[in-house]
């Protein structure tokens, strides 16, 4: 025997291991503290202490064996389990997924609307007064102005009239008496411009001005005097950007002058504190007159944009109208341009911490905590703010399992099927496994080959075999194809149940075959021999001696298998997805077992109900646990530890 005490190498090895583990955990712990994940950091600190306590002292020997296992169990099994348990007393579903704090902050963040006119600007994003934190935007507000067209001196003697006898179809017949322009005569309407020649017009003798042309009728004096107020605002089309305006009438003739409409810009700088109208002299403009730089304002470089993108996206800049209006920067400058996009917004939903209410400052509606996980307008109960939060509801989820027929009825069906499924699975798997084991319990020729082939389903990764079965049982799958039939294996309520059982039998019988054949060998042969001497035939021996012995030996495994299949999520989820659904599209389907139903309730439907799903989980847990505990008590597995 080796000398155990004082094995220095073992101690050194241990110390190295422990040191490594401790330093790694220590590093993680500090990082966790650093990012504010205090809960995880504390857990890691406890782990560090536990390891030190377990391996550097001799106070608790069992802990030396348990420490790592316990850590993993707590982190990834117990904590999530407690989380699930606690969810069951919350209204925790689509619409109520967040904590109340997160819900308030999201409502607050989202409580912004564009102003009524959708005012928006292309802006240069930068900073004011040399301080990068003082984010500002330079905006250019376009304005159309009209005025005499510079450099155009032509004036026209114009007759105001109408076309085609329609008095609303205004037109001007104009003559260039001074020969300043290239057009001797033209006819202009608000939307068209037609040059005319001598041949087109009739001239008035005295001044050689055109007075009529085809389709054109001049207004009479009386008509003109009734129109006098409107005439200054009339515009008639001239060349491209220009238009003709009429002056005062002299002897029924107007003086027409060429005008132009122009785009000019007003410039503003908006910072967090002020809205400044900047005179054009202080602006650097691009070719079209849009401002790209201003006094005291510096544009952010690409690198700075990236660095401050968060601040840029969230800044509220002053607008010409006071709060709740502000200017928000919607997008960063488009690559290759100077301009981002900013819009005028209103902070319409505002939170008051003291009274825990939200107010819509535009409509005046007040939203208060309705005790059910939402802020609701007490005057209009249908009007509430989203998202809501997880609200504690005590046992409402549990009572709804019993009281709400829409939940109760499918649940009962699913529950019954779950029991049936687990029970029938164990029975069929065990029966077939046992049959094969008994058949193979003799050295017949080819036993090795039979065995190797028959345990293939057990060796093959089940996820793949389940999916393959799914493909084979499909309406146009191999089974229907080969047998040349059209059986809806997975789409009929009862056939789907049979299919699930069949596939599960395929998956599980080799396991029971292996177990049973092992156990058969463990049964003393003398028992059978002596019975045989007593005149019992092989069948009687099997029924009266072998089977009871076998059952006694295998009960714990049968119970374990039952418990496993009770929660056998993979086969249901991957084979039928729980379907076909009961009566037109309820969440629960004919092959759903409790756990797949729970999964669908929580994850697979549009209206996800974690609260209800976790209440069902708790119920499943209680059932499975008590069944297993009963089974184990009965089989006395735990007796050695009494």
């Amino acid at each position, binding site marked *: 025997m080796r000398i*155990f005490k004082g094995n220095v190498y073992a101690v050194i090895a241990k110390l190295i291991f422990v040191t490594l583990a401790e330093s790694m955990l220590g590093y993680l712990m500090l990082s966790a503290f650093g990012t504010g994940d205090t809960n995880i950091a504390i857990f890691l600190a406890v782990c560090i202490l536990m390891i030190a306590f377990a391996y550097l002292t001799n106070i608790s020997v069992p802990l030396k064996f348990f420490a*790592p296992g316990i850590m993993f169990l707590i982190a990834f099994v117990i904590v999530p389990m407690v989380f699930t348990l606690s969810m069951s007393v919350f209204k925790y579903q689509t619409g109520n997924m967040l904590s109340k704090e997160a819900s308030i902050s999201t409502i607050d963040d989202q409580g912004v609307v564009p102003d009524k006119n959708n005012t928006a600007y292309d802006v240069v994003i930068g900073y004011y007064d040399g301080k990068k934190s003082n984010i500002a935007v330079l905006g250019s507000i376009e304005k159309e102005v009209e005025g005499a067209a510079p450099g155009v001196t032509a004036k026209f003697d114009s007759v105001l009239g109408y076309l085609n006898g329609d008095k609303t179809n205004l037109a001007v017949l104009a003559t260039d008496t001074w020969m300043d322009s290239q057009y001797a005569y033209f006819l202009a309407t608000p939307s068209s411009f037609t040059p005319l020649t001598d041949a087109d017009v009739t001239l008035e003798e005295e001044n050689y001005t055109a007075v009529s042309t085809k389709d054109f009728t001049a207004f009479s004096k009386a008509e003109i005097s009734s129109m006098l107020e409107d005439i200054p605002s009339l515009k008639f089309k001239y060349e491209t950007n220009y238009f003709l305006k009429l002056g005062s009438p002299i002897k029924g003739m107007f003086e027409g002058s060429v005008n132009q409409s122009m785009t000019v810009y007003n410039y503003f700088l908006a910072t967090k504190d002020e809205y400044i109208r900047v005179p054009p002299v202080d602006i650097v403009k691009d070719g079209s007159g849009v401002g790209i730089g201003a006094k005291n304002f510096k544009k952010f470089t690409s690198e700075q944009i990236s660095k401050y993108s968060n601040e840029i996206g969230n800044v509220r800049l002053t607008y010409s109208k006071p709060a709740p209006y502000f200017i928000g920067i919607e997008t960063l400058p488009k690559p290759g341009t100077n301009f981002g996009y900013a819009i005028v917004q209103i902070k319409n939903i505002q939170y008051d911490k003291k009274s825990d209410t939200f107010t819509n400052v535009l409509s005046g509606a007040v939203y208060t905590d309705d005790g059910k996980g939402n802020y609701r307008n007490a005057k209009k109960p249908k009007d509430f703010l989203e998202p809501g939060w997880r609200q504690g509801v005590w046992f409402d989820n549990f009572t709804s399992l019993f009281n709400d027929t829409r939940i109760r009825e499918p649940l009962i069906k699913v529950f019954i099927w779950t029991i049936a499924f687990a029970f029938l699975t164990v029975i069929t798997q065990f029966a077939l496994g046992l049959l094969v084991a008994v058949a193979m319990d003799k050295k017949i020729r080819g036993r090795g080959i039979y065995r190797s082939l028959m345990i293939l389903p057990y060796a093959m990764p089940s996820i793949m075999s389940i999916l393959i079965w799914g493909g084979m049982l499909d309406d146009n*799958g191999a089974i229907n194809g080969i047998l040349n039939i059209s059986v809806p294996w997975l789409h009929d309520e009862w056939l789907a149940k049979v299919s699930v059982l069949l596939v599960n039998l395929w998956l599980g019988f080799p396991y029971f075959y*292996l177990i049973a054949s092992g*156990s058969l060998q463990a049964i003393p042969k003398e028992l059978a021999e002596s019975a045989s001497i007593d005149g019992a035939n092989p069948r009687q021996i099997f029924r009266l001696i072998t089977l009871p012995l076998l059952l006694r030996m295998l009960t714990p495994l049968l119970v374990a298998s039952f418990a496993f299949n009770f929660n056998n999520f993979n086969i249901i989820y991957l084979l039928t997805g729980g379907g076909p659904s009961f009566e037109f599209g309820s969440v629960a389907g004919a092959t759903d077992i409790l756990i797949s139903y729970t999964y669908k309730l929580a994850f697979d439907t549009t209206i996800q109900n974690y609260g209800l799903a976790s209440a069902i989980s708790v119920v499943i847990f209680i059932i499975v646990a008590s069944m297993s505990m009963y089974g184990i008590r009965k089989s006395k597995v735990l007796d050695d530890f009494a």
Partner: protein
Amino acid sequence: MTFFHWFRQNSWRHIVGLLGTVFAIFPLYLVVLASFSSDQSLQSTSFVPSSFVLDNFTMLFTDPKIPFLLWMKNSALIAGAVSLLSVFIGAASAFAFSRLRFKGKRTGLQALLLVQMFPSVLALSAIYVIMERVFVFAPQWGLGTLGGLVLVYLGGSMGVNIWLMKGFVDSIPLELDEAAKVDGASAMQTYWQIFVPLAMPILSVVTLLSFIGLFNEFILARMFLPENESRTVAVGLQGFIGGQYNANWGPFAAGSLLASVPIIIVFMTLQRYIIGGLTAGSVKG
């Protein structure tokens, strides 16, 4: 022995054996058929192969969008690391539960069993959130990393493995460690120097079984490792037939075949031990 005699004695055994074998290998045969077929479906209408092409296999190794070898590597790495570590960690606990005397042992065992029975699908959300936080301070161990998934699996497999191995440990005779105790060995020393060498075959079996089990995990892996290059083979292959619009059974079958063969070979080679291992826990009950 005449043939007739032999038949009467053994014929039913052969019939059971034959039927069982057909039942067991029928789907597997179809997989092989589909994997060599040019038809992208499992619609075969006969047992006779209609075509024999290797397209499905070459696709797995040449299509840049199907990093099959990476998937295999990921699965092997994850399942390998977890099964080894979980047996390493779990065996110690199993040993302690089996051999040491301490307060709260029965409660501990019962608690372990109960925890095992908790329907854990819903814990998904909690685990996701935890690992997401871990990602923030330790990006190499959090969500989306193989390391992170290994941690989660380790936690999940702890209970089963401890429970399973306890059964095995119970079946190892007590005399040896009694002797060691007499020699003044500490519990740790007994564990490392007596128990571990003795239990090595059984530990290997548990490792293998847990490897296969992990190979099958799908729900967590799908959510944890969304990126194409980091997927496990189960998730990657499921993509062929679980996609929105198409079911490519050919490459799926080929991939399944390639993924299963190594496992089946190991399983067959260690058959004897596995059967021993499976029954050891039960027979003693």
